[in-house]
């Protein structure tokens, strides 16, 4: 292949490295109204009275909006296909504020100074209510997070606002109790993963203005332009035809921007005042009023035989969606469905049950890994614990039980496993890590121990039977192509990899394909950049659209040569008559002819959905050094091997993987969101919410072991999310191998290592 599987430079690379003005904050009208949100200082409260009259007198203040000024129809900010599984539980501004940081009022003014002053002068009397701040007590708690009557769940997700339930379900295959009863060994363990912030470097931000046609234009740092259009229209209760959403370059998303965290506020201001408006969340607001990972507590029972065969899993996940249900009903599903199938080979039964509960804590959202990360921490950890109990090498134990091609895992929705190189990934990683020499640990003789840990991961590629990929390809003068997409490049490089695929089909240079997107007015419908769908689904749409355009180019060529189209071929530059190769027309001539008295289409759109969501697979191994005196832990090496099917761009796939591993290391070792007893978040800046620096991640080394996914474009699966999943369980394993203590709650801080705290009672049956 000429362009696919090549390390092509990202199309926007030079603009980014030279600091060109390409982001929302660089492109907005500098005179736009400054918009800020007044946030609730209480975890649960009713606004008894709100007085904005003094604040309105601040010179330069244009408008202040409160719950009295917004439509009373509930909606969700979750960027999901309609009807969204996330309940309609929000108002743009609500009299009932449900977490410390919830929106109370929106202020717009000419300058930041004026707005800041006005924010302080809004007088609010609150009736403070008791709050649910421990998700273990949320279900059937007398305090209801959403007591209101107009709360709606559009999908049958098992939600019940009168029980603080955002979702509930149970599913199984086989008789799990009988299988476990028949096993030589059953372990039961509980694991606890915390809320984490995506902490993308560009915080949430949106710019809005009215256009020539009286429509609300929204330029936002978003992964989901089409969903954003619908959400904004719902929030403002205006026709969707009145809204256009586009996105410029995005300074990182990782799922955070799969919810409309900020869009609705400046949209309200512009819709009401007719004036351009701009809102940027500070780092503090992004930490406290954002859309972090769902906190989960996962109890797993695993049943195995003495020889290592794993016969069954029984999992219960309790997920904390916080004050609103964005992505609550869906993230939780991945905790079981994208972890249990890894050990499918000898699996006879599984059961997976879950509750997703409302609390008066920061509303959660989508974060890379989307529940799989949490589930894999539990499943990979218990498999490591099982290996320890069985006194087996954890790599060998895995190799005995791995999913493989040809299997149809019940826990993965009975979707057949077409492409899987997980065994090779694991063996390769072990080899490079020097597992056999380093496992379990080495005392370095200076008070430090070095140890290793292992974990596997899987994810999906798009949401089967739901997601849509769309691409439009157009032939232009001189034979260059314009590719229009609705997927959002958020730094991941999808503009480039999709252009690579187009270039592969059109047999042209990647530079000959210009990419435009995403724009709700111009792009073909695409559900957006999430669920690891872009390479797999949008990629296929690109492939199909390009095939159609090739045919049309041949038709125009045939007409020019006056020969039968079946008698032509096209090599990317020239359409030739096969039976008479002297007759040919160049692509340039075809392009020119297409613009004069032409009846053949030169623009094609393809739309794809998939009945399956082929999982990428990955193996990760870490080597850490622990200081026995202080508990300080340093990651030395991380070895990872990924099977994402055909690698479309090895450079971009590698950097994605390295970046995901670094985020995973942060999650494992220090990223945590904790609350005061009043429900305020402590980690509201990078001072407290530490993310890894380049001195914290050790050396990360990534390789690829490709399988070929027959349903993917050029054999590709996904890469974006899976990469964050291995560090937490691998590091927990390494800490055990050094200290003999299992850490079942994240993050694993030096204090916890030093104290050797056991957070949960363990039991084996």
């Amino acid at each position, binding site marked *: 292949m000429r362009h696919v599987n090549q390390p092509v430079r990202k199309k926007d690379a030079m603009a980014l490295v030279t*600091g060109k003005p*390409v982001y929302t904050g660089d492109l907005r009208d500098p005179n736009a109204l400054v918009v800020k949100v007044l946030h609730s200082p209480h975890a649960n409260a009713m606004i008894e009275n709100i007085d904005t009259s003094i604040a309105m007198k601040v010179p330069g203040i244009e408008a202040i909006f409160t719950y009295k000024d917004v439509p009373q129809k509930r909606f969700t900010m979750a960027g999901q296909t309609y009807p969204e599984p996330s309940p309609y539980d929000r108002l743009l501004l609500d009299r009932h504020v449900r977490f410390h940081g919830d929106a109370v009022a929106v202020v717009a003014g000419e300058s930041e100074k004026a707005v800041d002053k006005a924010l302080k002068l809004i007088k609010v009397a609150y009736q403070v209510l008791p709050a649910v701040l421990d998700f273990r007590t949320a279900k059937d708690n007398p305090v209801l997070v959403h007591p209101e009557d107009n709360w709606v769940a559009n999908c049958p997700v098992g939600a019940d606002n009168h029980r603080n339930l955002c979702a509930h379900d149970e599913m199984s295959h086989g008789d799990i109790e009988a299988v476990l009863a028949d096993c030589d060994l059953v372990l039961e363990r509980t694991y606890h993963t915390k809320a984490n912030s995506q902490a993308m470097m560009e915080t949430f931000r949106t710019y809005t203005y009215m256009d020539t046609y009286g429509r609300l234009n929204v330029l936002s740092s978003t992964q989901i332009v089409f969903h954003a259009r619908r959400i904004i229209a719902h929030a403002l209760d205006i026709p969707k035809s009145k809204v256009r959403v586009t996105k410029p370059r995005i300074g990182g998303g990782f799922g955070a921007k799969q919810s409309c965290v900020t869009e609705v506020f400046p949209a309200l201001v512009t819709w009401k005042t007719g004036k351009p408006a701009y809102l940027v969340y500070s*780092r503090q607001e992004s930490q406290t009023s954002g859309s972090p990972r769902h906190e989960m507590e996962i109890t797993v029972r695993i049943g195995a035989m003495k020889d290592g065969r794993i016969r069954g899993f029984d999992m219960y996940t309790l997920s904390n969606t916080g004050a609103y249900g964005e992505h609550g009903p869906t993230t939780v599903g991945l905790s079981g469905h994208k972890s249990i199938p890894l050990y499918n080979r000898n699996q006879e039964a599984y059961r997976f049950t879950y509750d997703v509960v409302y609390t008066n804590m920061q509303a959660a959202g989508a974060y890379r890994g989307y529940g799989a990360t949490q589930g894999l921490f539990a499943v990979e950890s218990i498999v490591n614990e099982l290996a320890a109990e069985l006194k087996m090498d954890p790599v060998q134990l895995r190799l005995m039980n791995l999913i493989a091609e040809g299997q149809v895992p019940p826990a993965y929705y009975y979707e057949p496993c077409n492409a899987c190189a997980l065994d090779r990934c694991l063996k390769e990683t072990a080899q490079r890590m020097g597992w056999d020499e380093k496992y379990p640990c080495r005392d370095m003789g200076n008070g430090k121990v070095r140890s290793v840990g292992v974990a596997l991961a899987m994810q999906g590629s798009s949401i089967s039977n739901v997601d849509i990929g769309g691409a439009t390809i157009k032939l232009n003068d001189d034979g260059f192509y314009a590719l229009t997409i609705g997927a959002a490049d958020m730094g991941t490089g999808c503009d480039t990899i999709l252009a690579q695929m187009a270039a592969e089909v059109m047999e042209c240079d990647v530079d000959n394909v210009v990419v435009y997107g995403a724009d709700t007015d111009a792009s073909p419908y695409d559900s957006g950049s999430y669920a690891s769908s872009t390479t797999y689904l949008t990629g296929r749409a690109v492939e199909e659209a390009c095939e159609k355009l090739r045919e049309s180019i041949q038709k125009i060529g045939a007409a020019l040569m006056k020969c039968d189209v079946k008698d032509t071929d096209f090599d990317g530059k020239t359409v030739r008559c096969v039976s008479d190769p002297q007759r040919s027309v160049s692509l340039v001539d075809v392009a020119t002819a297409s613009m004069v008295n032409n009846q053949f289409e030169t623009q094609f759109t393809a739309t794809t959905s998939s009945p399956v969501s082929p999982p990428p697979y990955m193996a990760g191994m870490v080597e850490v050094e622990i200081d026995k005196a202080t508990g300080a832990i340093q990651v030395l090496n991380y070895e990872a091997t990924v099977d994402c099917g055909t690698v479309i761009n090895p450079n971009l796939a590698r950097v994605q993987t390295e*970046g995901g591993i670094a985020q995973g290391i942060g999650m494992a070792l220090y990223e945590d969101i904790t609350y005061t007893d009043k429900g305020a978040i402590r980690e509201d800046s*990078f*001072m407290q919410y530490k993310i890894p620096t380049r001195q914290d991640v050790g050396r990360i080394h990534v390789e690829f072991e490709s399988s070929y996914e027959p349903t993917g474009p050029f054999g590709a699966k996904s890469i974006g999310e899976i990469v964050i999943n291995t560090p937490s369980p691998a590091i927990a394993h390494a800490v055990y191998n050094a200290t003999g203590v299992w850490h079942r709650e994240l993050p694993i801080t030096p204090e916890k290592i030093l104290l050797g705290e056991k957070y949960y009672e363990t039991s084996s049956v």
Partner: protein
Amino acid sequence: MELKFELNGKKIATVVEADSLLLDVLRSLGCASVKRGCESSNCGLCTVFVDDKPVLSCSVLAARVAGRKVTTLEGLQEEAADFGAFIADQGAEQCGFCNPGLMMNAIAMFRENPHPSEEEILSYLSGNLCRCSGYEGQLRGIQSYLAFKDAQKKGEV
């Protein structure tokens, strides 16, 4: 108050508030490369040079640069493209939001220490956070740029 300073080689006279931060003033003067990533001096996105030394413009009052020389990436386009190409060849720019700050600090490092060891690179740039790349690609880019510069000096390329 009136503020006069030199910005990317040009004399500037502008009006600022006493409490205006250099970051905001530079952005208002069209230097969009200067980014804000935090309010706690942790991220390094806002790095610019004052009198050729890297500083965090989010933590400097604009008034402090009166009469001094300020350089942003807008004033270092050639160097940025020169070095940035090596980052681009790794695909290490990802979302790019941290890139201007990294570029500035890396250029400062190259000037101070043209042959940094791996340790020195990691420590010099440890204040430049990046959430996307995992840093490895940036390191590869920096090292291949340094190797290229060396080869260039020796007349090998």
